[in-house]
């Protein structure tokens, strides 16, 4: 093995990695936020609707969940503009893709979360004369969030790792930064030696912080 380690190249361009990491975290955050809105709305629609609407929601969920993320990224970034619908930046298109992607997973999370709200709580609301939408807003949704907190943290960490795919459409997140340094300095091993702990440590820190939040708020059955 006559490879000579030289980390100086990495440190010289470290800002690409650092800001790339920040962008990855932001992409994941925005996507999960939009995804939660999509997921929650569709979950509510699903729960309250009849067979035909349920079929459409289920179709969206199944279609997205059974497709590779990479394909969805390409489809939205290259495919949609090609039939003249939109033009948008890589970053925007990736956020759209990841939001739709996470939304599909979150529909199931929220649906089962809503189902897990104890009947007794809802009955208590009925007993004091709350109307259905009041029970929804004040009882069912808040309780559901506490129940699904662990699943939400896992989803966020998962999305954070998935942002690495944005590199293929040149979004300057962490993976792309690594690729850039790679192609310009050929310091492959050093790059991976640096970004691997960056992913690991960031993921772990997020996990720990969310655990703390869970301890305060989550309901554990």
């Amino acid at each position: 093995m006559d490879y000579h380690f030289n980390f100086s190249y990495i440190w010289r361009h470290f800002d690409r990695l650092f800001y790339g990491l920040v962008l990855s975290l932001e992409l994941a955050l925005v996507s999960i936020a939009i995804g939660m809105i999509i997921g929650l709305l569709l979950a509510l629609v699903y729960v309250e609707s009849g067979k035909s609407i349920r079929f459409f929601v289920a179709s969206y969920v199944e279609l997205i969940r059974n497709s590779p993320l990479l394909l969805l990224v390409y489809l939205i970034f290259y495919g949609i503009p090609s039939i003249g619908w939109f033009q948008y930046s890589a970053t925007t298109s990736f956020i759209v893709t990841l939001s739709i992607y996470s939304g599909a997973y979150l529909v199931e999370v929220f649906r089962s979360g809503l189902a897990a709200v104890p009947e007794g709580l809802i009955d208590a609301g009925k007993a004091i004369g709350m109307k259905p939408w009041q029970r929804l807003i004040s009882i069912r949704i808040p309780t559901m969030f506490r129940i699904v907190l662990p699943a939400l943290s896992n989803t966020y960490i998962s999305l954070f790792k998935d942002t690495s795919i944005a590199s293929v459409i040149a979004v300057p997140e962490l993976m792309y930064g690594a690729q850039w340094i790679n192609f310009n300095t050929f310091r492959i091993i050093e790059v991976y030696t640096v970004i691997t702990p960056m992913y690991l440590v960031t993921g772990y820190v997020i996990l720990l912080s969310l655990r703390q939040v869970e301890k305060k708020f989550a309901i554990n059955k």
Partner: protein
Amino acid sequence: MEAALSSLPYLMDGLLVTLQVTLLVVVFATIIGVILGVGISYGPLWLRIIVRIFSDFIRGIPVLVLIFFVYYGLPAIGINMETFTAAVVALSIFKISHVIENTRGAIQSVHHGQMEAGKAIGLKFHERLIYIIFPIALRRFLPPWINSVADTAKGSALVSLIGVVDLMLAMQKVIGRTYEAMPVYIVGLIIYFIINFSLSLSSRKLEAKYAFIKE
């Protein structure tokens, strides 16, 4: 649209490669993962720690990093592989960590009380393993395992990025020739969907069928 449809044979070749990659990964990773999963459940402490660290490490990084590292990074320290081999190796490593978790969960789901009932009627350790643990653990293992096969099929799309001509890359090439992006993407979407959806359905059916084990 016609251009897309006439390229169907080429896409099918790509699909074949996708299936080959998926199959190889599933076979390797399952065998090794189950062995390690059993090891982590019954083995000595040092083994459990090593496997744990390995598992957490692999699952903490994006699959893409792993794939690129195996293909681009390893040659720098002298390990060279073809694209196909690198793809299978990287994806296998990734899947092994999931199979280990899956196996561990399945084994531990066998209630210690049922083990004791086995002891009480005089069954020896290997007999308890064969007649009690294995049947129950297998039924707990299968549904998540089928899901992970589907995940592997989806993850295999990433190997197109190191040049393996799978369905994903085949699609790209067709689009490069015909300039009809959307129809090709949609065809590809449908193919992936069919594969993964059937797997996901069987997993759910099995889970419902074996729900009685959850006692």
